[in-house]
């Protein structure tokens, strides 16, 4: 499960720290105490920044770092597709073997394929992604209001 890519992101996280944002959320995984505070800043339909602070296991920390690397600068529609594909991968219980097409979309995030075999850890990998989805929805609502 601990691919080098994951360990790298864990030890050298991308974009960690809280910066200005349009919306902030705080998510908790009550069974293990993983926590994340995450902010999203949009520029129209483009993701200008995802900043975060949290504590938790290597999987949840690395996943947040990968998310930052993957989503910042992307169009919202594209980011949502990535998020959905990541979710599908994580819920596959190890049944999806990532191919080139998937790697094209998910880049470093395909390293989490092995985690999907461990039901107890899937929630860790998804924590930041659920937080991002939630924060983005809030930011869009604010923008619309």
């Amino acid at each position, binding site marked *: *499960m*601990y691919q080098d890519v994951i*360990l790298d992101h*864990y*030890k050298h996280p991308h974009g960690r720290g809280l910066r200005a944002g349009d919306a902030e959320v705080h998510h908790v995984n009550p*069974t*293990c*105490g*993983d*926590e994340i505070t995450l902010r999203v800043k949009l520029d129209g339909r483009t993701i200008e920044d995802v900043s975060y602070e949290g*504590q*938790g*296991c*290597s*999987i949840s920390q690395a996943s947040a770092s990968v998310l930052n690397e993957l989503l910042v600068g992307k169009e919202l529609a594209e980011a949502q597709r990535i998020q959905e594909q990541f979710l599908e991968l994580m819920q596959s219980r190890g049944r999806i073997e990532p191919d080139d097409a998937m790697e094209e979309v998910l880049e470093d995030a395909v390293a989490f394929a092995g985690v999907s075999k*461990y039901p*107890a*850890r899937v929630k*860790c990998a998804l924590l930041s992604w659920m937080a991002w989805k939630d924060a983005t929805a809030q930011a869009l609502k604010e923008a619309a209001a």
Partner: protein
Amino acid sequence: MTPLPGLLDTEAIRKDFPILDRTVHDGKKVVYLDNAATSQKPRQVLDALSAYYERHNANVHRGVHVLAEEATALYEGARDKVAAFVNAPSRDEVVFTKNASESLNLVANMLGFADEPYRVDRDTEIVITEMEHHSNIVPWQLLAQRTGAKLKWFGLTDDGRLDLSDLNEVITEKTKVVSFVLVSNILGTHNPVEAIVRRAQEVGALVVVDASQAAPHMPLDVQALQADFVAFTGHKMVGPTGIGVLWGRKGLLDDLPPFLGGGEMIETVSMHSSTYAPAPHKFEAGTPPIAQAVGLGAAVDYLSGIGMAAVEAHEHAITEYALGRLQEVPDLRIIGPTSAEDRGAAISFTLGDIHPHDVGQVLDEQGIAVRVGHHCARPVCLRYGIPATTRASFYLYSTPGEVDALVDGLEYVRNFFG
């Protein structure tokens, strides 16, 4: 290394436990250090289960055919065995439940529905401690919510023991019940029963002891404890899942109202009203966990065969050794008492900044099974400002070699995330 004093002949004992030969992750023999969560089962218990189902299975009580008589004798015989195991004055004081959680909920519910002098209501107080398992917190929170009673608790000292400095303020004339854990499943702490019981008796409060982590590991004498109720659970004491015990004083069991209603617990039923069987049957609604009680009887025979004092001595030796060796690991902080005195064989710790989930997972890759998380005792984690711990917990088949494997494994974990 010189052999530790007090160790059992684990080579012989381990032969009784088929699962200890299990290998994981490409041939690594499992090092099972998750005994506080549940114990493994010896052949003798599995044989008792099979024999029950293959030769004697029937529903118990009231049957006039051979199988029903045999099943009843086996089920009630298990009650005799459990009664003897905890030195109960009477077999009728042993109630079979499905687990310790049901036992504790049973007491909480009886007290909520009881008449005076036992009744818990808005003018009364319930006392627990900050180191309880959720199964000894939530039932009392629910009772407090439903009755309006006030829930109070003893806090913890920095070194993982009960803070009883405010004993007389926490337990007061309003206290109707005091419920506490004998041995903590997260800290390993062995609590001072006498001081609490004395104060409870002074104010006339009932005493409930959660012995889930005591019954498997040391001689348990309900009379010496002087408690009113004692709860424990079969699966942690080499018995099957699906069976728990509530021991209660005869007079109390007679006075208190039933909890679950149904077959077996009645004396006579009409559509308009029912009367109830005497204890223990009053508290055993429906077809009981028959095979599981029989299995628990075999478990108790197994443990008694070895001797609970010997089991305790073995675990004490292992715990002392493990505490010493773990404290050699850099950045390892023990959460709970750091010496083996008044302490059980569950050892929680943190390892630098490495999250327990990662510790546990990387240990697992080496075949070492520990538990990580809040161990159903989240208030303890809150108290010590940590999100979770890694917990290694030992039992009668644990060896010093397994302690060494754990320590080596932790070194590997440190390097892996270093």
